[in-house]
């Protein structure tokens, strides 16, 4: 049985701020004590380097590190060798553009992306396309702002070599029909790179079932630490590209003129890794597995529906994505800039995001100067939603009052 109160007790931030209403989960989730404990365990019990030392402590650290990779790979149904650790999803996506695009993209080729993308998903390809004289195409969004298979077909042809798309929009909360798009893309041998930064915390990802070529995600959006993320790459793909960075730990033998690199995934990871963060990442995965993605989904969707039903009764605001698939509400108080409204929420102890959410093309598509975004996760409860809705109402009233308008 899902118990939000018990879940809250797992997060030390709530001990410090018992009344915190944290609704910025799409940006970063809070960190549970077990993740902090795991990272602390590494530093205090076997805090030495991995893959190097021939002594017991180093062996222990390496073992924990490998176990962590195994667990995170399992989480998305990938093989151990296909999961590369990176700084975060942005880093993963940039690496792919640089490693694959540099080697294989040619003048006259095309890359498909969308206006729903986070900057980290499409900017690396915008730059690579410019460099290579390739064309960057955008899938037209439908009336709700969704990516559809039909619209993908409209821009897809034999010239397309890469498709870089988000699995879940970080502003509108829509799930992309990515599996169907991947199947279509593969017909002409285009590779598909999936930005799963938002998806990972909410829906079960199975890279084998999706058949995606690459997939990127970050630990900090799924209860893990910041500064660590992952890049999944299909074995054949990873074997066909060259590492971006060279240095310690990624090679087998080195001479003055040559080197042989380690097997995948190790050849893509040079220098000492964020070892504690990797262990924390795996611990977060274990916690999510323990609670169950299904239960997480149900809890969040219940809160999401409850919030939407309450907001519908209010006047003076616009919700841009009432049909979102994951619990993200993007909205604006009519006539009030999102940053002005956000200050009001902040004063009420409610954390939400205001602005472009690193996805300026979405704001442009919505024809607004950014939005307010409330996003829910496992520790949120009905009380959080009630305080959120109450503050929306107060904000509407406040700005009406200062603008000298009469209340209706």
């Amino acid at each position, binding site marked *: 049985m899902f118990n939000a109160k018990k879940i809250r007790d797992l997060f030390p931030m709530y001990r410090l701020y018992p009344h915190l209403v944290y609704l910025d989960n799409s940006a970063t989730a809070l960190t549970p004590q077990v993740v902090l404990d795991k990272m602390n365990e590494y530093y205090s019990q076997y805090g030495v380097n991995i893959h190097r030392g021939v002594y017991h402590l180093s062996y222990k650290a390496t073992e924990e590190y490998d176990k962590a990779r195994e667990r995170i790979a399992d989480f998305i149904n990938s093989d151990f060798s296909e999961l590369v650790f990176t700084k975060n999803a942005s880093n993963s996506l940039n690496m792919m553009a640089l490693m694959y695009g540099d080697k294989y993209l040619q003048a006259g080729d095309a890359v498909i992306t969308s206006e729903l993308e986070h900057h980290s998903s499409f900017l690396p390809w915008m730059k690579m396309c410019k460099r290579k004289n390739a064309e960057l195409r955008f899938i037209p969004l439908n009336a709700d702002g969704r990516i559809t298979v039909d619209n993908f077909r409209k821009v897809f042809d034999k010239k397309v070599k890469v498709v870089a798309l988000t699995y879940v929009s970080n502003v509108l909360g829509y799930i992309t029909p990515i599996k169907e798009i991947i199947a279509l893309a593969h017909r002409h041998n285009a590779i598909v790179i999936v930005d799963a930064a938002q998806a990972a915390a909410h829906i079960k990802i199975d890279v084998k079932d999706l058949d995606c070529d690459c997939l990127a995600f970050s630990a900090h959006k799924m209860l893990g630490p910041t500064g660590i993320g992952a890049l999944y790459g299909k074995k054949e793909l990873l074997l066909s590209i060259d590492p971006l960075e060279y240095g310690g730990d990624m090679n087998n033998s080195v001479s003055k003129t040559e080197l042989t690199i380690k097997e995948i995934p190790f050849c893509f990871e040079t220098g000492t890794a964020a070892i504690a963060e990797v262990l924390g990442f795996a611990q977060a995965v274990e916690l999510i597995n323990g609670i169950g993605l299904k239960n997480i989904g149900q809890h969040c969707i219940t809160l999401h529906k409850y919030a939407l039903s309450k907001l519908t009764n209010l006047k003076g605001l616009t919700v841009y994505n009432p049909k979102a698939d994951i619990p993200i509400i993007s909205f604006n108080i009519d006539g*009030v*800039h*999102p*940053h*002005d409204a*956000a*200050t*009001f929420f*902040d*004063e009420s102890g409610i954390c939400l995001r*205001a*602005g*472009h959410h690193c996805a300026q093309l979405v*704001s442009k598509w919505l024809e607004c*100067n*950014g939005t307010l975004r409330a996003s829910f996760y496992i520790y949120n409860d009905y009380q959080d939603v009630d305080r959120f809705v109450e503050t929306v109402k107060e904000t509407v009233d*406040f*700005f009406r009052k*200062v*603008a*000298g308008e009469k209340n209706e």
Partner: protein
Amino acid sequence: MNNLENLYRQVIIEHYKHPRNKGLKGFPQARLYNPSCGDDITMETKIDSGIIQEINFDGTGCSICCSSASILTELLKGKSITEAKKIIAKYYSLIKGEVIDGEEELAEAMVYQGVSKFPARIKCAALPWKALEQLLDGENNEQKS
């Protein structure tokens, strides 16, 4: 008056809804952004013999940012570059919550005193002033890659 009421004073909303000197005429310009929240302000000014003859602005952003651009254009018109720089420095002190003397020099801009209670908003209130400061320093900031 609570902090929020003190921040969103009538005069700020008034300048936000009815901005003065909005619209560019083609004098030397400086454009600055707050990319996280979307403030995007361009200031332009015509300077003759060290005196600010005219200031205009254009752009979009929150009420704090846009109103401060509007108030700025009225406040600094007719001032010498040296005077303007002094006033801008004083304004920065004001929004950071520092004690200042000679409040009358800031005139209507004194309403931004309330901003100091909202550290996340200081950069909103400062943006148009930073842009103008660059113009006065003769800098060109637009960067594209």
